[in-house]
């Protein structure tokens, strides 16, 4: 279906609820609805299989307008439908939940609560997502009147209800500092013997408050700030931001610049997937593969360094184009490196599909069906390994992806083995695409002039990061800095599936299950609670400790 027919269908589906439609861009439909109609409008879209919930953007429109604006973005192919809701700005306005229909919405709704003070009626969990335990109640960082003085630390409140011990079940805490985690996150697994019966996690250890910080920096400064959302997929963030800003400023980026951006994106995908292969192999206890893949990853790092001057945080994108040109020397280096990498990647593909001891850790573990992948809102290779054909580069080609398309890799099996296979095959596709672009690089300018002030407007830009779709919503007020910038990164959407799938598996499989979705804490830092079984009886931490002391005392002194 074309984008026009998709939008036409969405208009028809949403007609009973609409208070006014408009098309801010050719691929976007904006429907204003009443807050009370939200669950039924969402149900209508879901029943008609129209798209998936990509993000919720909350914005404070300020004292003058005296309203809060919520945008629920649904994506299908290249089409984006946004449900627009206005709420009064007085404290704690109500909005009904949609997380009973779409589980992933529960994170977005908790964000609404703590960032903007919106009261989401009926949401399963309204505890803290990002903000630290010592953050004062009733202070919302995304409100216009927020100042640092209000956020002075208070006595920490217990944000996680303790799970404790129930019958033969225990809670195993993992993190935030743990050998299996390269980044800080805190997990609590309830185990019955070796089997996991519940999983919960608390993030927020690397939440820095970037969305708010963008409002204080100008358009150019933001490019370098957003690059540092994540050091692994930094180019994704600059591309998404630059694309959005260029759309708003109506700047036409030269084709050569777009092609160079795609080369760097391809190299970034190779470095990220090889990094992931190493870390995942390390979690499985296969350190040889970890060392091998990281050794070969250095080939890509060398290429990135020759091209951009940096190994990480390449900064090749500027608003309006790219910084550095691509020469014949680069082209030779790339071909040589791709020859080597293709051979190595085929070897890794062979290992992850044939090595018997490795397959015991991956085959049939964490299997996610197509329906589950859709229901949990999985993205990227995690979704594609379950047969869900979801890839922004193909659904909604941006940049040079019209000219140099990539092929879609999917797998039906949905287990960890399939995720390894999908990622390795994606690497081969990336190598092929990079070769094609290098051989057919369009001539021309590298960059065009970008204005200091960007005309008022709002736009959505979506980019396929190595981990899945990254979603950017950018709103300009016509000034030197954006008015609102909303970022939704792929790891967040994948957590629901990973933690739900952990239930029923052995505790020893947890590192692999977590690694299987390639989580990136620095970009998605939030807190989640999922599915707990039989926890009618819970103990607090101090009760648990007391119980432990008594128990061990009784063991020491047998009666």
């Amino acid at each position, binding site marked *: 279906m074309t984008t026009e027919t998709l939008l036409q269908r969405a208009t028809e589906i949403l007609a009973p609820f609409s208070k006014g439609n408009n098309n801010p861009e050719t691929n976007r439909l904006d429907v204003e609805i009443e807050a009370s109609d939200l669950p039924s409008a969402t149900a209508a879209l879901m029943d008609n299989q129209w798209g998936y919930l990509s993000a919720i953007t909350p914005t404070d429109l300020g004292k003058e307008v005296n309203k809060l604006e919520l945008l629920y973005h649904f994506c299908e192919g290249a089409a984006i439908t946004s449900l627009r809701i206005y709420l009064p700005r007085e404290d704690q306005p109500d909005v009904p939940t949609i997380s009973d229909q779409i589980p992933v919405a529960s994170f977005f709704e908790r964000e609404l609560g703590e960032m903007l003070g919106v009261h989401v009626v009926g949401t399963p969990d309204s505890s803290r997502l990002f903000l*630290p335990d010592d953050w004062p109640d009733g202070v919302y960082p995304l409100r216009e009147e927020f100042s640092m003085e209000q956020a002075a630390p208070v006595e920490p409140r217990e944000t996680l209800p303790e799970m404790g011990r129930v019958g033969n079940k225990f809670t195993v805490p993992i993190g935030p500092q743990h050998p299996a985690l390269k980044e800080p996150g805190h997990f609590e697994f309830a185990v019955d013997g070796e089997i996991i019966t519940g999983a919960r996690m608390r993030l927020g250890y*690397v939440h820095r408050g970037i969305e708010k910080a963008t409002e204080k920096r100008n358009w150019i400064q933001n490019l370098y700030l957003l690059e540092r*959302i994540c050091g692994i997929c*930094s180019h994704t963030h600059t591309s998404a931001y630059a694309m959005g800003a260029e759309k708003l400023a109506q700047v036409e980026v030269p084709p050569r610049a777009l092609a160079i951006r795609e080369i760097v994106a391809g190299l970034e995908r190779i470095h990220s997937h090889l990094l992931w292969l190493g870390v995942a192999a390390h979690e499985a206890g296969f350190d040889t593969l*970890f*060392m091998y893949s990281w050794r070969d990853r250095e080939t890509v790092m060398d290429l990135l360094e020759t091209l951009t001057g940096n190994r990480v945080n390449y900064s090749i994108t500027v608003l309006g184009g790219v910084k550095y040109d691509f020469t014949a020397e680069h082209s030779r280096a790339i071909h040589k490196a791709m020859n080597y990498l293709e051979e190595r990647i085929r070897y890794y593909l062979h290992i992850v599909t044939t090595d018997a001891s490795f397959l015991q850790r991956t085959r049939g573990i964490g299997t996610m069906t197509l329906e589950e992948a859709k229901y949990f809102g999985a993205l990227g290779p995690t979704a594609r390994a379950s047969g869900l054909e979801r890839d922004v580069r193909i659904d909604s080609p941006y940049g040079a992806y019209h000219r140099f398309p990539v092929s879609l890799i999917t797998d039906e099996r949905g287990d960890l083995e399939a995720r390894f296979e999908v990622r390795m095959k994606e690497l081969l596709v990336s190598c092929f695409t990079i070769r094609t672009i290098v051989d057919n690089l369009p001539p021309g300018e590298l960059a065009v002039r970008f204005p200091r002030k960007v005309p008022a407007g709002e736009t959505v830009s979506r980019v396929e990061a190595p981990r899945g779709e990254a979603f950017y919503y950018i709103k300009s007020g016509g000034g030197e800095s954006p008015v609102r910038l909303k970022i939704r990164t792929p790891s967040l959407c994948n957590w629901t599936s990973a933690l739900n799938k952990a239930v029923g598996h052995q505790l020893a499989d947890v590192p692999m299950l977590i690694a299987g979705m390639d989580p990136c804490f620095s970009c998605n830092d939030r807190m989640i609670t999922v599915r707990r079984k039989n926890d009618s009886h819970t103990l607090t931490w101090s009760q648990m400790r007391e119980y432990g002391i008594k128990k061990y005392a009784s063991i020491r002194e047998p009666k």
Partner: protein
Amino acid sequence: MNVSQNYVSQLMGRITTWARVNSPWAIHFNSGSCNGCDIEILATLTPRYDIERFGIKLRGSPRHADVLICTGPVTRQARERLLRTYEQMPDPKFVVAVGSCGISGGVFQGCYNIVGHINEVLPVDAFIPGCPPRPEAIIDGIVKLLTHLQNGTRPEPIQFAPQETA
């Protein structure tokens, strides 16, 4: 204390220093970093850079570690965990701050969830600048720290220039 006891304690001291310099075990803590420094620290372990040739090993437990390698600015949520990790390390312990954010807060200065740079929370012995520093720079920084250990000195405390008030 008689002469032989004194000699034994001196000898033991020399053996400990020798052991410490040749096998410093490190623990890595990310207190709000963007991952850039963390992947470069991991890269130092891998065959191209191979930091283990200096006897340096990354350990999971703070109780086994001599050197705490910190990355990133310190967020409000991570502060308490960073301190707890530091307190769990046995003496003598050393702190290395990797990356611009760990030195000054970097691009994240002034964000609402940031406490500040690492030196505001822990006494830092070595700073490795860069965004992120190259693996060679990380190795260089740690080797410089080891030279001080060998000589039995602590690195000079770093004096920050007082901020000019407008």
